[in-house]
C-alpha cells in the first residue's frame, strides 16, 4: 500500500515535470505510450476539479470511472460551498474545472473573466423537505413548516440552497430557528434531531436515507437549481478539463441521475 502510494506520488511528480517542460515541445512525451485498450485521445496529467459539496458522491464515482480508463490521469477534487469555491478561484486558486450549484455563483467567476468558454448546465437539483426517519411529526407539505410546534432549519440566502429555499417558500411565512452555512449543515441538524425539518436538495436527502426521509413538495418545481460547469481560463490542464466535462455529460449522466439529480 505504502509503496503504491509513493509510486503514485513519484509518477505524478514526473508527469507534472513533464507538463511544465513540454509547453513548446512535442506533447506526445508522456501520453504517447498509452496503455493498450485505451482510446487514442487518452487524458493524462494532473486535473483539479472544484465542485459544489452536493456533487461529492457523484463526482467521486465519475472520477474513479474516468481514471480507470485513463491510467495516466490523476484527478484531485476540492468540494465545498459553491460561493466559497468561486472566491478561491477568483483569488487565483489553481483549478481546471469549476462545477457550481447555481448560475449565480458561476456568474461571479464569469464576471471576473476566469472562465474559458461558456458554462453549460449539466444537471438540475430540486429541494425536498428532510425530516427524521419515519416522519414522526407527520409533515405533509410546505405549509406544515409554519406550524408553531416545529423547528425548521434553512440554508442562509447567501448560499445556493438558501436562495432556492427562499424562492420555493414565496407565500409561506415561516420563522426558521437557524440559517445554516451550507446544505450539509442543515441536513446534519435534522440527523441530530435538533430540528424537525430542513429544506435540502433531493440528492442530499437521498445520500442520507438511513437517517432522514426526503418529502417531495410541488412548490419546489418553481425553484430548481441549475448546475453549470466550465473550464477555467488559467487551467493548467485544459485538455483533461475538456475531457472530464465531456465524460460528465455522457457516461456520467447515469451516475448523477442515480444520485437524485435530473438531466437538464
Amino acid at each position, binding site marked *: 500500500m505504502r509503496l503504491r502510494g509513493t509510486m503514485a506520488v513519484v509518477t505524478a511528480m514526473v508527469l507534472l515535470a513533464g507538463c511544465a517542460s513540454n509547453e513548446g515541445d512535442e506533447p506526445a512525451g508522456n501520453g504517447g505510450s498509452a496503455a493498450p485498450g485505451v482510446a487514442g485521445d487518452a487524458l493524462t496529467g494532473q486535473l483539479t476539479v472544484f465542485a459544489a459539496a452536493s456533487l461529492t458522491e457523484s463526482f467521486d464515482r465519475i472520477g474513479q470511472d474516468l481514471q480507470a480508463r485513463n491510467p495516466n490521469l490523476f484527478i484531485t477534487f476540492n468540494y465545498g460551498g459553491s460561493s466559497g469555491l468561486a472566491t478561491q478561484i477568483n483569488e487565483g486558486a489553481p483549478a481546471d474545472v469549476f462545477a457550481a450549484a447555481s448560475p449565480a455563483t458561476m456568474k461571479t467567476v464569469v464576471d471576473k473573466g476566469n472562465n474559458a468558454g461558456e458554462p453549460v448546465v449539466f444537471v438540475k437539483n430540486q429541494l425536498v423537505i428532510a425530516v427524521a426517519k419515519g416522519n414522526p411529526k407527520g409533515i405533509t407539505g410546505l405549509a406544515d413548516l409554519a406550524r408553531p410546534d416545529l423547528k425548521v432549519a434553512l440554508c*442562509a440566502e447567501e448560499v445556493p440552497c438558501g436562495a432556492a429555499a427562499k424562492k420555493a417558500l414565496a407565500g409561506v411565512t415561516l420563522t426558521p*430557528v437557524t440559517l445554516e452555512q451550507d446544505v450539509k*449543515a442543515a441536513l446534519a441538524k435534522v440527523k441530530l434531531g435538533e430540528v424537525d425539518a430542513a429544506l435540502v436538495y433531493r440528492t442530499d436527502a437521498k445520500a442520507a436515507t438511513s437517517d432522514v426521509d426526503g418529502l417531495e413538495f410541488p412548490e419546489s418545481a418553481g425553484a430548481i437549481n441549475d448546475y453549470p460547469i466550465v473550464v477555467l481560463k488559467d487551467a493548467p490542464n485544459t485538455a483533461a478539463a475538456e475531457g472530464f466535462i465531456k465524460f460528465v455529460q455522457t457516461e456520467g449522466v447515469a451516475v448523477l441521475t442515480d444520485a437524485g439529480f435530473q438531466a437538464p
Partner: protein
Amino acid sequence: MPASRRRRQRVPAALLVPALLGLAFLVLPLAGLLIRAPWATLPQRLAEPHVLAALRLSLLTATLATALCLLLGVPLAWLLARVEFRGRGLVRALVTVPLVLPPVVGGVALLLVFGRRGIVGQWLDQAFGITLPFTTAGVVLAEAFVALPFLVIAVEGALRGADARYEEAAATLGAGRWTTFTHVTLPLVAPGIAAGAVLCWARALGEFGATITFAGNFPGRTQTMPLAVYLALERDVEAAIVLSLILLVVSVTILATLRDRWVGAA
C-alpha cells in the same frame, strides 16, 4: 542600575531578526485586509442594521461568556494550583481539551449533551422547558466552552507564581481557606485574572465553529460577527473584509485599553 544598562545594550541579531519576522507574519495579513478594504463604500456598509446587530450580539455574548468563565474558571484554577489530589495531572490535561478539539467538533459535542436529545438538554427541556441550541444563551455556552481553558491556564499560572507565604501567614493568623482566598489570594493574583479574562474575552469574540454548530445562525439572535463574516464571504468578499475590520478595530481598541488599565505592569 543593571536593569537600565541591560536595556541600553544592543539587541542580538539572532533574537531581533526572528522577532521582527514573527511580528511581520502576524501583522502582514492585517495589512492585506486594510489594502483590500473598500474605503469608498465603508460608511454605508457600516450603517447596515445587520452589521450593528451582529456587533452588539458579539460584544454581549463575549462579555457574558467571560463572566461565566470567571465564575467557573477561577475556582477551577485555584483547585488545580492549591489542592493536591490524585489525578490532578489528568484533570489539568482535560481542561485543555477544548484547545485541541476542532471547535466544530466541540459544537457537535455540546449538541450531544445540551441538545434537544442530549443527556442534559433532554432533562432541561422536560423539567424547565429550556432549550439551549439556537438561542443567545447557546452562543454564550459555546463561546465559554472554547474560551474557558485560556482563563484557567492563565489564572493557574498566576497562582503558582504567587508567593504562597502570604497565604500561609493568613492561615497561621486564623483565617479559613475561604477568607484566605477572598482576602489574600484574589488580590494577589488579580493581574493574572485580568490577563486571563482579556484572553478569554478575545477568544470568545472570535469564536466561530462551536457557535455555528451549536447555536446555529440567525440574525439578531445567534449571528455573531464571525458568523456574519463567513456568510458575507459567500456573497461578497469586500463585505466580509469590512466586517472583519470592524471586529478587529473594536477588539484591538478594547484590549489595548484594558491591558493598560488593568494588566498594566504585569
